[in-house]
């Protein structure tokens, strides 16, 4: 099953060409489908989070984009160029960070960056050294510039990996788990860098740290078992809980909850008591009426005070788990799971535009 979110507020004719576009991109290893018919578009100057559990096909996708692996079928274009036949031209405009970056152990950090820079630029003059110094400073390795990389920790290798990916100021950065080996401070810094790079480049990065995606990504795609299960602007994905409201009330809810349940457009009410506060989740099938009437109904009850009211906003973890576990439930559904399976499918359908 493939569930996709497509929010196209811009008419197709005026849409700028995506930086990355895949069409039915597929990779099989024998009978194992590592990636199945991926259709993906990465907009220019976006920070695009590519999510999925381990083994979902994220790294396979990235490797095919930079020409390290060949698609079994389908195609990918980057800057409108075919990733398979125009690989070198594409790579001259791309910076790539592998999942577990490795470098020549006898080279220092500075020598490593010089080696990489010479694939893009002439000479070894002052301009190149300046660029290297800037880049080392960007990733916080200026004080380790003359150290051979054989002594680098995982986090330092990751920083150097980001530096070498950025040394040519690429139009597109493809980063495979850029924050995975970093401590919380390092992660924060990497996310800050990614956020700033948005103005100059497109960042396509994979991760399974959902909090990071929520913080910096403006677009998200979720992959599971080699299949795309969602792709949308982050905001749309998080606002995807259509017809759900949350209230926080103080006082007795003994009368207001039955009152809400009796409304024809309310489909469900769940309460959670927390000290003197009660959190109420309300599901509705008529958002216009709920927007207009729900708060009024509650305020009409003198026994409660409304501390907070609003539409329910999902966090990415909920969305991710719903989609990833949801597809698993549907895919492995047995007769006994029928109800749960249908509910899951119903929830997923909320995301289909």
């Amino acid at each position, binding site marked *: 099953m493939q569930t996709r979110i497509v929010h196209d507020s811009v008419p197709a004719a005026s849409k700028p060409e995506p930086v990355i576009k895949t069409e039915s991109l597929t990779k099989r290893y024998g009978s194992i489908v590592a990636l199945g018919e991926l259709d993906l578009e990465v907009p220019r100057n976006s920070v695009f989070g590519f999510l999925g559990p381990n083994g979902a096909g994220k790294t396979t996708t990235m*490797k095919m984009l*930079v*020409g*390290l*692996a*060949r698609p079994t079928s389908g195609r990918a274009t980057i800057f409108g160029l075919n990733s398979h036949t125009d690989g*070198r*031209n594409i*790579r*001259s405009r*791309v910076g*790539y960070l*592998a999942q*577990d*970056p*490795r*470098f*020549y152990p*006898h080279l220092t950090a500075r020598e490593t960056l010089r*080696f*990489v*820079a*010479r*694939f*893009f*630029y*002439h*000479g070894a003059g002052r*301009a*190149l050294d*300046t*660029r290297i110094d*800037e880049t080392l*400073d*960007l*990733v*916080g390795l200026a004080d380790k510039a003359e150290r051979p990389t054989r002594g680098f920790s995982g986090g330092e290798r990751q*920083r150097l990996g980001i530096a070498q990916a950025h040394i040519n*100021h690429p139009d597109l950065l493809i980063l495979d788990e850029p924050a995975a080996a970093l401590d919380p401070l*390092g992660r924060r*810094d*990497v996310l*800050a*860098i990614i956020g*700033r*790079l948005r*103005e*100059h480049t497109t960042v396509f990065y994979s991760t399974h740290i959902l909090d990071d995606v929520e913080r910096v990504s403006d677009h998200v795609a979720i992959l599971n078992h080699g299949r795309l299960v969602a792709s949308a602007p982050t905001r749309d994905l998080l606002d995807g809980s259509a017809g759900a409201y949350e209230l926080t009330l103080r006082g007795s809810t003994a009368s207001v909850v039955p009152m809400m349940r009796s409304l024809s457009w309310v489909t469900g009410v769940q309460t959670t008591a927390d000290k003197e506060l009660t959190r109420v989740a309300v599901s509705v099938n008529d958002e216009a009426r709920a927007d207009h009437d729900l708060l009024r109904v509650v305020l009409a009850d003198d026994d409660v005070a409304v501390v907070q009211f609003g539409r329910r906003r999902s966090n990415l973890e909920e969305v991710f788990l719903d989609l990833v576990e949801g597809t698993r439930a549907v895919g492995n559904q047995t007769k006994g799971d029928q109800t749960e399976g249908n509910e899951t499918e119903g929830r997923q359908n909320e995301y289909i535009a």
Partner: protein
Amino acid sequence: MSTSPELASTTPLLPLARRTTGVRNLVRKEMGQWWTTRTWWIHLILWIVVLDVVSALVVRDPDLTAADALAEAIRTFLLMCAAAVAVGVVVTVQGAVVGEKELGTAAWVISKPVSRRSFITAKLVAHVTGFLVTAVVVPALGFILVAQTADVPSIDLGRFAAGVAVVALAVSFYVVLTLALGVLFTGRGPIAGIGVGLVLTGLFFRGMLPTALVVATPWPLGDVAASLALGTDLDFTWYVPVLINVATGAALLTIALWRFEREEL
């Protein structure tokens, strides 16, 4: 990390042409691994000791006449150069491609605007240069020095150079073979096994095999080298194994380049 990096550097840098293959940069890096590390002097000392010291002992053998001692020393030098250096090549070069595939540096380099052909070509250029200089040319010059200081007739430098050239071909063949095996296999075991096995089979069993088969291998190149250096006859035409090994080496290189183009990294 810096919290306010200059992301849009104004530094003027001259971009390379889009069609560049990266071979120059890769050759520079591979050469650096030979000549800016201790690799070069370890090899140089090893091969001077193995080839020139042994040859010096032979050329001063008191049981031989001066002319025979020189001839035996030349034969020893060239045969050892063809066989021992071949083993050294296999041992040294076996990890050149496989090691990078295992470590992930091959994928890293290929993710840059370089051709896969350049990746292999750079290794070939660097290892052939490294071995020819440290294990063939410099020890050959050392041998000439050893012979000149011994009480033997002068070496015919033209003939000796021809013999050294054939040995250089043998060494280059083993570099190509080992790199090709590195592309075809994913572990070092088969590479070392096949490479060293080929050398040892030639040393111990080639007498049991028909000449027509032997001339199609790199085994007789040491004999060809000695024959050219000493002006002696062979059971076969000297250029037959030379041409066959040039052709085989070219075929192995072509297969390696073709296969590496399709390698999933």
